[in-house]
């Protein structure tokens, strides 16, 4: 998933990831190491292009200021996005619908929730204003990818959604399977997705990580911080 996320980033662009985002952190550093050396990485602590000696689990950690070339504020990132100059925002969703809208607020009535979720953080502001949003979610099942959201925390310029099973691309406002990961199948994707999908015959396989990508991933994240995202949640 880290490799699939990294491949979506382009050189000479700006990318932001927020709270609780180890996978996007690794993906951004990976893209910068591989194909996007002039990528500008922005973070909540405000480090511009951090070069941390080790990776934190908390993506608000002061480690994300170390080696940075400049320091800005979170408000600066929102302002950048609001004036249309943030290229990519990495955002997550506890639930995601077929239009790529997300719920991070509550299960059940948001005023009297059955389950109170952490909240959308920056997503409601960034999703409609960033040039494109890439969503990620470490769980792909019918409770996560749903036909209807109880609450729309954020909606907007979703371009891709990366899951443990596949990559979705949003085309004409609807999530469409772009590729299925090599260790998954079209049937598994269909069974785990709560909204309607197009004909599976057209779904190609996600190109597996190359040796270069895997080597760079191991160098950037030797402690396997990305793995923490798959534990529970």
């Amino acid at each position: 998933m880290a490799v699939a996320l990294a491949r979506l980033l382009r050189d000479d662009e700006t990318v932001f990831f927020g709270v609780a985002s180890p996978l996007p952190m690794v993906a951004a550093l990976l893209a910068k190491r591989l194909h996007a050396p002039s990528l500008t990485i922005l973070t909540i602590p405000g480090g511009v292009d951090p070069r941390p000696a080790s990776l934190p689990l908390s993506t608000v950690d002061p480690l994300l200021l170390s080696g940075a070339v400049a320091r800005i504020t979170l408000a600066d990132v929102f302002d950048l996005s609001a004036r249309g100059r943030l290229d990519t925002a990495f955002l997550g969703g506890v639930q995601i619908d077929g239009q790529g809208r997300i719920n991070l607020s509550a299960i059940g009535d948001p005023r009297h929730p059955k389950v109170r979720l952490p909240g959308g953080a920056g997503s409601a502001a960034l999703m409609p204003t960033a040039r494109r949003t890439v969503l990620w979610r470490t769980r792909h099942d019918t409770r996560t990818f749903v036909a209807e959201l109880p609450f729309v925390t954020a909606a907007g310029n979703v371009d891709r959604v990366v899951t443990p099973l596949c990559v979705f691309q949003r085309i004409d406002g609807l999530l469409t399977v772009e590729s299925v990961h090599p260790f998954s199948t079209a049937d598994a994707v269909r069974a785990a997705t709560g909204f309607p999908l197009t004909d599976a015959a057209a779904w190609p396989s996600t190109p597996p990580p190359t040796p270069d990508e895997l080597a760079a991933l191991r160098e950037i994240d030797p402690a396997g911080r990305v793995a923490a995202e798959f534990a529970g949640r």
Partner: protein
Amino acid sequence: MSDKRRTLAEAVASIPDGSTLALGGNTLHRAPAAAVHELIRQHKRGLHLVKTAGAYDVDLLCGLGCATAVSAGFVGYETVFGLAPLYRRAVEGGTVEAREHACYTIIAGLRAASQGVPFMPLNGLQGSDLVELRGFKSVRDPYAGEDVLVVPAIVPDVALIHVQAADASGDCRILGSQFEDVLMARAARRVIVTAERVVTRDELAADPAHTAIPGFLVDTVVEAPRGAWPTSCAGLYDYDEAFIGELLAHAGDPAGLRAFVEARLLAEATPA
């Protein structure tokens, strides 16, 4: 310059029940934890907490009955411990009102307060149910004629901010990220600062670029070594994962939680 130093107990005693409190720091980092512990020690009630992204501070004040409302974009321990269980139970049980914001609408509300205007226009939130949930309105731009979302000012009664160093008149050095602290210091009616060290004015004047909050904005200074513990304080200590884990092990048991907090947080001074 006047000497604004007070004890932690005196500073926190000046905060009435029902106050709106802006809490500095972000998630597990540089939260005003010593002040939070003192709020619990003094049995404050009815607090309304304001923060872009909170974790330990918000969770604890909700879990121990001090807070009744939280305006925040995010409340959780990130990937480290996941959801904030005390906050979650308080909201689901109806004792705390979750006033969910986007982080940017917290910032916009504080900006309005800091500029002395009643609301702040904002580009964002298109398609989000938060607009209706929060009752955010739009106004007609009198120049271009288009509708623009406006967020009401958020004026905290008190901002509680923990910093690495301050002098007796309240000038504050912040190392590492400033988060929203500088903005909070301008938006709030009163500013209470806890500092790892109280230093001389000359020491701060030697490096004015790091004096993030000048003393004329600050009302009260408290010397509080390790005052962000168990959250991190950049350059000095990391967050205390073991301690927070121990605390959260009591999350499902209110009596056990209170006993743990009494014994480990309230009975003694902050561990060195």
